[in-house]
């Protein structure tokens, strides 16, 4: 086994599975092009082949040298300490990964579940909006419950969750909660301080982008969030 650890084998297996998936999917667009005899799939397949070779090369490196860096000076030059930080914070175990990916499911659940429910109970228009608000509230509750148990997982999830809800709830309604959430995850616990900083950040951003540069930010598409967003834009512009 040389210096191989289970993590190395999992890493190589993930790469090879990805290559296999991409290769199989390439048959979906494996079409001839009259003026180009290699067709549409030759270039991506060449990349896939190189990816598989590099993944096997990486496995060989792990077998021979374990986690040591290559002797390339540049590779050492770019060590930003993120690997050590992960290891020392015990954020590299199977349990941590399971918990983190569990949290990361939340935004995708928001993107899918309301439409599924609406399709099952045949609801349209305002009914779908109500389902979205209820699903969002439940998912936010789940997120807050698990947040304290895995702060890094929560930090990875929060921005994606924020982005997933942006279309429906709008920037103006979500941004205050997002700012407070990020500050909380970074360890800030003083409520008055958090509220002041939130208003300061939001005020500066709205002044610069909405008032001065006229950047149209998403206002949401559900009542009352759409009304709040539109009102702020009207007041500022």
């Amino acid at each position, binding site marked *: 086994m040389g210096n191989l650890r289970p993590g190395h084998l999992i890493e190589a297996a993930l790469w090879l599975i990805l290559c296999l998936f991409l290769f199989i999917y390439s048959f979906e667009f494996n079409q001839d*092009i009259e003026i180009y005899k290699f067709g549409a799939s030759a270039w991506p397949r060449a990349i896939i082949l190189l990816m598989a070779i590099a993944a096997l090369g990486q496995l060989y490196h792990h077998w021979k040298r374990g986690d040591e860096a*290559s002797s390339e*000076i540049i*590779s050492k030059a*770019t060590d*930003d300490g993120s690997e050590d930080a992960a290891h020392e914070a015990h954020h590299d175990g199977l349990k941590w990964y399971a918990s983190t990916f569990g949290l*990361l499911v939340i935004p995708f659940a928001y993107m899918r579940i309301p439409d599924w429910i609406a399709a099952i109970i045949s609801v349209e228009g305002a009914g779908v909006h109500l389902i979205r608000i209820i699903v969002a509230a439940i998912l936010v509750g789940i997120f807050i419950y698990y947040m304290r148990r895995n702060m890094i997982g929560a*930090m990875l999830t929060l921005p994606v969750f924020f982005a997933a809800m942006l279309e429906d709830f709008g920037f103006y309604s979500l941004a205050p909660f997002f700012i407070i959430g*990020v500050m909380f995850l970074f360890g800030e616990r003083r409520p008055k301080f958090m509220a002041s900083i939130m208003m300061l950040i939001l005020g500066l951003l709205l002044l610069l982008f909405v008032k001065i540069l006229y950047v149209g930010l998403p206002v949401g598409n559900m009542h009352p969030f759409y009304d709040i967003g539109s009102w702020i834009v009207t007041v500022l512009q």
Partner: protein
Amino acid sequence: MDAFNNFLTGTVTLFSDPLGILIFFGGVVGGMLFGAIPGVSMLTLAAILLPFTAHLSPEHGIMLFSVIYCTGVYGGAITAILFNIPGAPENAPTAFDGYPMTQKGQAGKAVGAAVMCSALGGTVSCIIMMLATAPIADWAISAFGPPEIFALVFFGLAVASSVGAKTFWKGWLSILIGLMVAVVGLDPVGGIERYDFEMPYLLAGIHFIPTILGFFAVSEIFVQLEKKAKGSYKAPKLSVDFPSLSELIAHKWAVFRSIVIGFFCGILPGIGATLAAFMGYNEAVRWSKTPEEFGKGKLEGVISSETANNAACGAAMIPLLALGLPGGALTAMMVGVFQMHDMEPGPLVFLNSADLVWVVFAAMFYANVSILFVGFLETKTIINLLRIPFQFLAPMILLLATVGAYAVRGLTIDVVVMFLAGVIGFFLRRSGYSVAGIVLGLILGKIGEQTFAQAMQMVHFEWTGLFSRPITAGLLLIGFATLIGSVYGEFFKKKPTTDG
């Protein structure tokens, strides 16, 4: 003499028009500011301003973008040095030594070096650009076809494969991820949909601005939180200790080498400042007597990459104006400005709109000179950003990145893509992969595939035909030699030098 007269005419035209002066200084300050604010970049500003240039004259529109280009490339160095967040990919090598310098309390010195070298590299590049535009454009038109550009992309990727990753293989895997992401969307020859997973959004491909913001700005926030969680996060130390003249004179060869590298990388379409910065840094390591000190806060690392990337800015205008080929993201937006005014960049611009060309050249020259003065003043203000605790800076960076990603196309899915890129970047970084490699692969992937297809059509699908063209053959052979040397080192080198 003609060039000097044209330059004077351009200067007079630029400074005799109050609106022109206003746009010029707006571009200088805006480029620096957006380059320097963590989470946004000159590309964000350019994307925001692009629709408004329809109301400006073509001269003012192109001039504004070229000024933002010069000062924004410098501004991106500030975030690279202070926060390890490169404002743009071309500032990534600046962070290699700039950020360790900040952690050692030498932020002022690193930023000061970036100011002086950006101004120097950019100004010299502008002067050469003005003197040599015509002959170089003529040479490039005759000597550089798709096979040469493809060979150059291959050479660039082969050289850059070792940059930023823990191992050679992880460096290549990072670049290959970028190349694969660039495949998503329509194929450049037949317009066939690839890896779109039946999602209309993916038909236009994954946009590079949200991806860059995610991989660099967002993943950095996640890494900082993890460092905080294990208690190793240290607020950077403050100082405003600029480098002395003797320190800069001691690096004169590094500056000269980087100007040459930067100019030649910049002049070649599709390569631009990113590869210039990486190659400038790489060559500095190769030529140094103390290569082990790189990456730990060596001034020469900052000097080399910042001189090279600004030297590339002036040169990047040559393929844009002479051939109509954008060298990077911002020059691609300039093509958009031309098109909004029903103009096509290319040789005809030189013939029909010489005024426009020389106003742009003069503006770029003065923008680079102004980096020296405005940069020093602004640096002292920006350095105070370090006094803000990270728990307050983090939400601001994330929201600025949100606005930046959304402003490009007005799509919330771009914001989702950006944050997902941040999550992926976080996991890849902690596993020793290179986010800079991914971004390089993403940017060069489309150009690489397109030029490969054109090159193969030109040589009637006989790959040996590529070697009948001297420049193509030379670049391909050097690229292969670099690759084989790295693979040989991986398999046959007995013990890696891990302690530097």
